[in-house]
């Protein structure tokens, strides 16, 4: 029988998230600014190429282009960053897993949530940019917390499953790295959904990362609520990922001690 942990989950999460966050930024002279510089550089490059060399990715509806790009980059970057820290979290915290009776599920979830701190900063930047391009805040902005909550839950589910598998098969993280490289091209970051040929459209429709990108553009650029199909997609993705992730994790965690 597994031993029950009694304690203050909120306090525990708060401390683990702060810990990750402090470790990541304490040794950087620019600290938290790095989380802004990286997407800004990427946005600059993509805006330059697709804004000047190949305007609007060939579509005038993609204006203003920097907002268009960031609506794609912010969800994608969060996905990659959070999934990779989540997937390696159990091994990275081997000392805890082997010596401290902390509930194991907390470790990958805290790793994902610690990425949310600079996610919030990036979203704030994106909203600021949206307004500065003359796009007005609208009531559909209220959808943002919901779609992001579903998305974060989806990533938590993936992190739970992959962190547990990574204990038993240590090259899981490299598989994931290749996967995210492929994913970059399966998310419409610098082109819009409308230019995708019909026969490939389903690949984008079922992809939860793409779903979030579409929803962001609907809300921020078109001023429309995300369509029902996208909400269904995100809800299913979050439930399946969390359900399956927990199932895998619960099964595999019983022998973490022997395999770390």
């Amino acid at each position, binding site marked *: *029988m*597994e*031993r029950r*942990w*009694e*304690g*203050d989950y*909120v*306090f*525990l999460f*708060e*401390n*683990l998230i*702060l*810990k990750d966050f*402090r*470790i990541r930024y*304490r*040794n950087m002279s620019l600290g938290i600014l790095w989380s802004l510089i990286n997407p800004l550089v990427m946005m600059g490059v993509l805006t330059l190429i697709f804004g000047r060399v190949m305007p609007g990715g060939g579509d005038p509806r993609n204006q203003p282009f920097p907002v268009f790009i960031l609506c794609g980059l912010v969800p994608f970057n969060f996905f990659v960053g959070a999934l990779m820290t989540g997937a390696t979290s159990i091994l990275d915290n081997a*000392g*805890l*897993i*082997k*010596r*401290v*009776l*902390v509930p194991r599920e907390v470790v990958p979830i805290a790793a994902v949530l610690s990425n949310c701190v600079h996610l919030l900063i990036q979203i704030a930047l994106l909203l600021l940019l949206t307004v500065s391009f003359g796009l007005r805040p609208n009531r559909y902005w209220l959808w943002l917390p919901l779609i992001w909550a579903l998305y974060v839950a989806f990533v938590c589910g993936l992190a739970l499953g992959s962190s547990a598998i990574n*204990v*038993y*098969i*240590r*090259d*899981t993280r490299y*598989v994931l790295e290749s996967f995210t490289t492929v994913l970059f091209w399966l998310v419409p970051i610098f082109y819009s959904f409308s230019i995708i040929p019909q026969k490939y459209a389903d690949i984008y429709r079922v992809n939860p990362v793409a779903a979030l990108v579409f929803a962001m553009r609907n809300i921020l650029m078109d001023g429309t609520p995300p369509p029902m199909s996208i909400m269904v997609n995100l809800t299913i993705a979050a439930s399946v990922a969390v359900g399956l992730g927990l199932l895998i994790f619960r099964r595999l965690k*019983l*022998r973490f*001690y*022997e*395999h770390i």
Partner: protein
Amino acid sequence: MPPALRFDHVTKTFVHHTGPLLLRERLIEMVKPSRRPRFEALKDVSFELAPGESLGLIGANGAGKSTLLNLATGLSLPDQGSITVNGRVTALLELGSGFHPDLTGAENVRVNAAMMGMTRRQVAKRFDEIVEFSGIRDFINEPLRVYSAGMAMRLAFSVATAADPGLLLIDEVLGVGDQVFFARCLERIQSFQAAGKTIVLASHSAELVTMLCQKALWLDRGRVVLQGPAAEVMAAYKGNGLNPRPDGTGL
């Protein structure tokens, strides 16, 4: 009254050599399952500890003392048999294993206290006491990497024992502290005993076990050689020629 800790015919085995944990090996294993040799770290171990009792675990390196403590903590599960625990467990297995070198002493105290199940309010209330007991107030806002091993251990012991455990498990971890701190650790352990807490202590030091524990359990290669009143077990242990460290230190 239910026992604080009970081992019922517990057996724990480990695979001898797991080899590289990569995809290739996993695939080969799926196609061609191999029975890797296992060794028994604990074999058919049974004992019972009533609330307020203290048990000393003795035996040579590799006898299974640490495996027993890990199982009692709940970090790994037995292959056979069952383990029953009543009350909150705090384990001092490898002090400072939850510490991070880039965080300050104070930050590490909070993270570790939270992991041990202390609430925000308890930490706020006991923080000063934790720092006071560790005796390193001047360094508490310095990153842990500038601490000496002794300092890190003092801080870790202070946090771990602040969690107010019902059952305290101690692996031989107190060795790095100086004499003065060692004395304070003993004092704290004795105050736990006075407060009716249950303690399991793994040690090489015969003196310490006789001083602190009523009961002792002697392990050799995973098997119980003898268990009973500490004085009797220690006498047999010494008489066996498997003498503990002659200086009597090294808890």
